[in-house]
């Protein structure tokens, strides 16, 4: 089973995307990129194949993606062609108004 804990790192099986789980889903499920289940960051398998055409709008670095049904929230850590989904439901880009630096 995929343990989607906060802070856990994952990578796409079909493109160069990498991601970090920021908020876990309320119930277990499968996080996918480019339509294929993601792999743990430390997996040594190289990505192969192509993102599914229905899941190819891309992962952007630094952007947050959420699934409103499950509550999962994911941070794009490296960009790639595949886009994210959870149990087949596409994640939506979470719009965030950037705050000015204050430290």
């Amino acid at each position, binding site marked *: 089973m995929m343990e989607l804990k906060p802070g856990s*790192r994952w990578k796409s099986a079909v493109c160069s995307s990498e991601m970090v789980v920021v908020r876990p889903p309320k119930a277990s499920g499968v996080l996918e990129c480019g339509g294929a289940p993601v792999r743990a960051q430390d997996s040594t398998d190289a990505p192969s194949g192509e993102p599914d055409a229905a899941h190819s709008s891309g992962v952007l670095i*630094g952007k947050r993606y959420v699934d409103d049904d499950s509550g999962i929230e994911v*941070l794009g*850590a490296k960009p790639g062609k595949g886009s994210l989904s959870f149990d087949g439901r596409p994640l939506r880009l979470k719009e965030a108004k*950037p*705050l*000015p630096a*204050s*430290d």
Partner: protein
Amino acid sequence: MRTTLLLEIAADAGCDRIAIGGLANGLTGAMLRDRAKTVASWVQGQGEAQQLAFIGLNGETVPLLLFAAGYAGIPFVPINYRLPDADLNRLVARTSPSVLVIDDDMIPRLDAVAGVTVIPRSQLENEIATGPVPEDFVEGEGEIAVLLFTSGTTGEPKAAVLRHENLTSYVMGTTEFLGCDEDEAALVSVPPYHIAGISAILTSIYSGRRIVYLPAFTPESWAEMAAAERISQAMVVPTMLDRILDILEQKDEHLPALRALSYGGGRMPEPVIARALKALPHVDFVNAYGLTETSSTIALLGADDHRIAIASDDPEIRQRLCSVGKPLPTIELEIRDEQGQCVPAGTSGEIHVRGDQVSGEYLGKQGLCAQGWFATNDAGWLDRDGYLYVEGRLDDVIVRGGENISPGEIEDVLRTHPGVADVAVLGLPDDQWGEKIAAVIVARDGAADAANLSDYVRSRLRSTKTPECWHFRDELPYNETGKLLRRVLKSELSEPATIG
């Protein structure tokens, strides 16, 4: 989520960017990560060390140790090197069992303490950190990232607890991952034992902004470094800003690379910020309000708010220059009265705050209520548009030039003077330091004078804790339960002092 994760993902994605130090010889995120792991592995080999403490000037050692402690799974504990030796040694003893990294020239100040392994900073930087990266390194799991000793009002300083969870929530809630342009750089001059010194490291690493350190602040060195390193962002306390503006004016330096200056850590006098806006029109000014216990910023007055306020003839809008702006969208903030009820806009009360970044915890003591709210002990009010005005500490801690000064400590010293029958110490508004220290003395047989008392305090505490103005009274105002009415004194003392 752990603070080390912020470094890991930034190091992996930001490859060639310099993360820490000068453009010519700085460290990339990956180099910082490797060195931090090397130091962590070494610390894990030092027996039972439960804390990684640091005493020294600002510099690249600070982020190295912050992340090394995170990897080792123990708290990073930066200690104020400006403390008198006895106080410094008491805090060092409280870290035991620990590893203490200390500036080489400060080692003679230390007493030997059981359980504290003392490592000169030069040895850490030149030998330990540059060793081979351990291949089979296993990260520790301790949940506390940082302990910061707060200058409390009474007794020994409290150790404020900042968990990895608090700090990463703050960073991820307020900063965009690698959101900075490659040429951005932050000049960090707030000391390592201050929350802003910690949060600056984490937000800079995560957002891909290079960090440049100023070992010790002078306005001259700040201005020189800002120009030489093409600094784009810096955080200063109000006292620093006024002195920086003097230097920039003298040198006719306009810092073209500077994009943003944030300020906080005390009351900003309106004339100073108005002057800054005029002197540096290309710079975005940000006023930030936060506490150690809230992992830094909880409210912000942004650049547009500054520009609108300074240009406005409407006193209500103009007044916003003296506010700390609006609470962050990631936290909840309420103003409550003494009975715990929320008060309407425009009414003063205690600022309460809740959110993932809010720790409110001290070692051995949970400071949050059952519903997760933290009572800040700061007085303030919200205007009808939601702008927050901070009035000062409820318990009358004096904030002078960003330094928290406890009136009780000064009163205690003065009470030992044979000419003093009774005393009250309090802060009064001051345009240069935010607050200045005033002492109100009830003299015994008229035997004390201001110059004499001033010398007396200075010889026992440091000069920044010596009252700047002295008043003499026949008696002090107390309420029926014997509590000193400082507010009464404060409002009475609006007139100039006998000695400045």
